[in-house]
């Protein structure tokens, strides 16, 4: 008989804790709803989130269920190689910090397209940025919902379709009523839950091995059946091109994810945007180190009949089952409570991440597509349009998720989102901010070539060609950024050099000075500024000459 819980059985305790999580999130939404009236409050929480809180929220955005369960699961199955994607993800925030965070905050207003189209011909540049933003967030949203449904089915025994609909309905409620403020606070609560769970489990695992990492690694290697090879590279990412390409796609892809970049508009100024990323790197770095203990700990401790079967094909249940084991195992009160608490953290993660994605998509539809492309910047009630867009996007995402079903390979979707972000969004965004000669044709060519190259390479990759998860694909690159990112940059360069377009809306000097000094940047609503900053501003104002 298996010593592990048969996944998919109804778990009353887990469902009860889920209900508590839902109640907390609804209270947050109710509180946020009273403070979400204007367009700026809806999209950016009045630009009043402090750097530290925004840093935790960005970490929360990034640590999705596929991240925090996926990395530990991959390490359970493939050892060290499961950690490589996490390493690249941690390092990727340096790209965001060095190249984009302050510049985005100073130059932008609500969306990624605001920055890209700042000095270019507005309609085409905005339309191109909006298209790729929707592509990335849409794909990522469906990936998260597929993962959410499958995970809740396995952990709590809730039917896939019901789990997807529950997540979809609640994410819509958060955004429609609480906007960015509710989404941010749900992210903060969830990220804190996740960090606490990660620290507790890691210490618990180490305690099982007398706080000796070597003992833990030896046991993990022995139990894996692969010996010392389990502690080194080569079991999952099998060729040099595959390792480097995967690393580069994640490294540059993060800097093109609209729901991450949009967070820089929620802080009062460029300094707070910078501080946000520094905090994010702190949180994600610690998590990246802890995940090795969780992944190898699961491999070392989850032994016996059915362990590999119980963690699932992608290893996603390794971390929850480790929590259950540490609590006393299946059938014990401690084990059931630990599993239920860990599942609640996973549930909160899913809700928070999908909310952020829907908000990013809704902002793109309402602000970029409707207000600025269709209505030419006319004075319209953008918040109302964004709320309607949120509901429409949620319905679309739920239907699309139910159509693709729980068996769909989420890795393909996540890889697509990162490849598009790295190859279409990132090159155009970076060059718009830093290359004086860059023009509208360059942006359109770069985005188009980045998307085409990404589609072609994904179709030729192992999870897709010639059929799902089959052998014999022309390309071995699941994350083909090594090929597609240079093509994105090449497209931007070629388009710019071959075009004589000079119809810029604003000058490069304006963008440069604004992005590097903050002069003329969107100010925060004084009522929403962090308390300490309000006090400092008031004190400084009294010292200014009248």
């Amino acid at each position: 008989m298996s010593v592990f819980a048969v996944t998919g059985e109804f778990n009353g305790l887990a469902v009860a804790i889920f209900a508590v999580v839902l109640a907390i999130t609804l209270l947050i939404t109710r509180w946020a709803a009273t403070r979400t009236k204007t367009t700026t409050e809806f999209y950016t929480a009045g630009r009043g989130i402090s750097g530290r809180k925004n840093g935790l929220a960005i970490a929360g955005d990034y640590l999705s269920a596929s991240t925090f369960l996926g990395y530990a699961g991959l390490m359970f199955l493939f050892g060290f190689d499961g950690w490589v994607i996490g390493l690249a993800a941690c390092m990727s925030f340096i790209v965001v910090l060095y190249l984009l965070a302050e510049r985005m905050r100073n130059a932008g207003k609500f969306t990624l397209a605001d920055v890209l189209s700042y000095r270019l011909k507005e309609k085409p540049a905005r339309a191109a940025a909006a298209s790729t933003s929707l592509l990335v967030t849409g794909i990522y949203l469906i990936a998260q919902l597929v993962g959410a449904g499958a995970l809740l089915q396995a952990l709590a025994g809730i039917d896939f379709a019901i789990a997807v609909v529950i997540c979809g309905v609640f994410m819509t409620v958060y955004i429609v009523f609480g906007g960015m403020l509710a989404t941010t606070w749900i992210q903060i609560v969830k990220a804190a839950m996740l960090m606490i769970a990660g620290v507790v489990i890691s210490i618990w695992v180490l305690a099982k091995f007398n706080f000796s990492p070597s003992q833990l690694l030896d046991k993990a290697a022995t139990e894996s059946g692969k010996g010392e090879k389990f502690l080194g590279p080569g079991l999952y990412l099998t060729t040099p091109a595959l390792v480097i390409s995967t690393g580069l796609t994640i490294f540059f892809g993060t800097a093109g994810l609209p729901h991450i970049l949009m967070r820089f508009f929620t802080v009062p100024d460029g300094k707070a945007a910078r501080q946000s990323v520094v905090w994010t790197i702190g949180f994600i770095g610690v998590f990246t180190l802890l995940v090795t203990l969780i992944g190898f700990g699961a491999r070392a401790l989850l032994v016996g009949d059915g362990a590999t079967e119980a963690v699932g094909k992608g290893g996603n249940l390794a971390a929850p089952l480790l929590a259950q084991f540490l609590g006393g195992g299946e059938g014990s009160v401690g084990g059931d409570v630990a599993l239920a608490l860990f599942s609640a953290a996973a549930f909160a993660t899913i809700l928070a991440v999908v909310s952020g994605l829907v908000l990013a998509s809704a902002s793109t539809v309402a602000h970029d597509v409707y207000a600025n492309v269709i209505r030419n910047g006319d004075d319209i009630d953008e918040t109302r349009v964004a709320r309607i867009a949120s509901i429409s996007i949620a319905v679309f995402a739920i239907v699309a998720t139910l159509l693709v079903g729980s068996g769909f390979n989420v890795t393909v979707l996540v890889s697509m989102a990162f490849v598009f972000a790295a190859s279409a969004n990132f090159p155009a965004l970076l060059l718009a901010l830093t290359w004086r000669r860059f023009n509208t044709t360059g942006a359109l060519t770069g985005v188009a070539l980045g998307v085409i190259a990404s589609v072609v390479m994904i179709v030729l990759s192992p999870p897709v060609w010639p059929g799902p998860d089959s052998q014999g694909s022309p390309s071995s690159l699941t994350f083909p950024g090594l090929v597609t990112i240079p093509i994105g940059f090449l497209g931007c360069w070629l388009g710019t050099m071959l075009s004589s377009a000079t119809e810029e809306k604003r000058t490069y000097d304006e963008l440069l000075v604004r992005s590097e000094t903050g002069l003329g940047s969107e100010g925060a609503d004084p009522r929403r500024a962090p308390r300490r900053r309000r006090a400092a501003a008031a004190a400084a104002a009294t010292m200014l000459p009248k």
Partner: protein
Amino acid sequence: MKERPAERPHDWQQLARTPEFLRLHRSRRRFTLTGMAIQTVALVVVMGLYGWAPDAMGEPAIGSITWALLSGAGLVILTFGMAIAYSRKARQWEEMAAAALEHAGERVEPAGRFQR
């Protein structure tokens, strides 16, 4: 929400040509390019070692901790270091930005923000 005062036009071209701004821009560009080069090369070299020398990277370095794990932890520590270095340097840039704006006759707002 209370309406913000109308935007005062700035002479962006003149601002971009002030010696203080040029110094700020060069300093930012030099630091950013160097930092990005270090981080990207570190990623590619370590990932390359994982790909081309998996056996060597799988050898124990300290106890059972392999070179692969050690270099991975090194990348995380490098990332922390790069973030702290940027954060420190950015404080200098804030002063340089304020000097550039003052030189151009722009009013510097409290709390480091510059209103239109």
